[in-house]
């Protein structure tokens, strides 16, 4: 990576009581790239994203655009341009699609025009336009995922942390989600992608990090990892 990184993580540690979920990992994300974070269940992927978003307390240094943000809470980090689309989508089920989107942009009015952003989202996700006044809880899994991503994008983030966006979705919806990630990245959005579906993630990522037991087992260019037979055998034969 040549350009100065958008996100630079050094010695990140997350523990829940006596359990160390993430053990001193270091990595950086270059502006405009997709970095895939892969690994088995319980390897520490979700904990890492949650720590970066500010929801889960962690130790270590997290620098965003060269500034240490490790002391900031989730609200402040959102304001700086970091958005997390959490695992399991977590749309607000009793709120309508419109209300979910509204809340996505409500804290960021100074940064852009929420109405324009909403129109942008509705043209990017036409299905949300059809479902605009329905409760989010009534949407299908794929539609909820689209809504969750659109809600994150309402803050006009520079860095999107995407946690398991394809989890539990039908195969053709999974294709749509991956196409969308590539499309969003094409507009200049930097994406840190956590995926169970490791080979699919490596196909669209620029770089990748393989986590095992809370530590970095491997890192490198996604294409190299994808090509290496050892890695295929050890991590991608899901």
């Amino acid at each position, binding site marked *: 990576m040549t350009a100065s990184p958008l996100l630079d993580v050094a010695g990140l540690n997350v523990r829940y009581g006596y359990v160390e979920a993430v053990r001193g990992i270091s990595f950086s994300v270059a502006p405009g790239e997709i970095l895939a974070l892969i690994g088995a269940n319980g390897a520490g992927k979700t904990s890492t994203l949650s720590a970066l978003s500010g929801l889960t307390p962690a130790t270590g240094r997290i620098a965003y655009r060269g500034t240490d943000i490790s002391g900031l809470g*989730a609200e402040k980090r959102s304001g700086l341009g970091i958005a997390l689309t959490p695992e*399991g989508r*977590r749309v607000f089920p009793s709120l309508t699609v419109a209300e979910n989107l*509204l809340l996505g942009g409500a804290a960021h009015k100074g940064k852009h025009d929420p109405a324009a952003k909403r129109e942008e989202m509705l043209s990017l996700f036409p299905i949300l336009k059809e479902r605009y006044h329905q409760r989010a809880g009534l949407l299908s899994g794929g539609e909820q995922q689209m809504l969750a991503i659109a809600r994150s994008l309402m803050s006009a983030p520079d860095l999107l942390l995407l946690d398991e966006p394809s989890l539990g979705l039908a195969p053709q919806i999974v294709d749509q989600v991956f196409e969308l990630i590539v499309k969003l990245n094409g507009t200049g959005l930097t994406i840190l992608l956590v995926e169970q579906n490791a080979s699919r993630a490596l196909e669209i990522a620029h770089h990748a990090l393989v986590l095992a037991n809370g530590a970095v087992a491997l890192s490198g260019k996604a294409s190299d990892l994808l090509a290496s037979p050892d890695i295929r055998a050890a991590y991608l034969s899901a």
Partner: protein
Amino acid sequence: MDLLLQHVINAVSLGGTYALLSLGLAIVFSIIGLINFAHGELMTAAGYTIFFMLAAGVSLPLAIVFAIVAVAILAMGIERVAFRPMRKADMTGLLITSFAMSMILQAFFQNAIGARPRAVAMPEALSGVVNLGSVHLGIIPLMSISITVVALVALNLFLKHTVMGITMRAAAEDIDVVRLLGLKAGRVVATSFAVSGVLAATAAFLWVAQRGSVDPLMGFVPVLKAFVATIVGGLGSLTGAVAGGMLLGIVEVLAQVVLPPSMVEFRDAFVLGFVILLLLVRPQGLLPAPTGRRS
């Protein structure tokens, strides 16, 4: 027939007061998972505010507005001083804090104002009766119902059409995601307390208007009933709280009317017995809140 109408008006009026109180409990519960037992003392504080304002010659509408504002501020103050430092504590810790807050305020009222009930001088006009042919309806229960309706409609508009209201509904489902979106969770919690204070003060006025006096323990019984109502309605559900409050008011008035005179003193036992039966059939309450989904 006339008597029936009067009973219905009384039932809806009492049920409405319970509904306002249980809504206040439910709003705070839905967001931070705390049953605020100091809610009764918010009611008492509002009662005393109205008492002192009227004694000082302030007009009743102004006294009510003043009580609402003062108690909303008091509720936010309690949140700031007692609950916010405890936000990492478990359910038990929060519950004990709310009991402590309740007792501190009760002791304060007893020592600063006095333990004996104070008569509240309501304007003459309120004690009147509206005569519709052969039907005589008290002004206080009618006013009670109107105020309850206005409060419910206003709260509904607030929750549906303001960003803060929508954020509060979202926070009831998933407060972590609210924070992820950059919305200030602390402000949402503070607002929920303010809203609960407004509802407690409104209910306090209705209660005082009906009974004509204030004492340091005034809030205890109605809030206990309101707590029962939130359980009956489904803990954490706002529509459930209103339904539970209404139902409890209706059952109470019904028990008062149908029980033979020798049994009326056991009215609450019958009402609570009914609640137990209801919960045996529907343990989740009438209209439970959708359970928070976490992956």
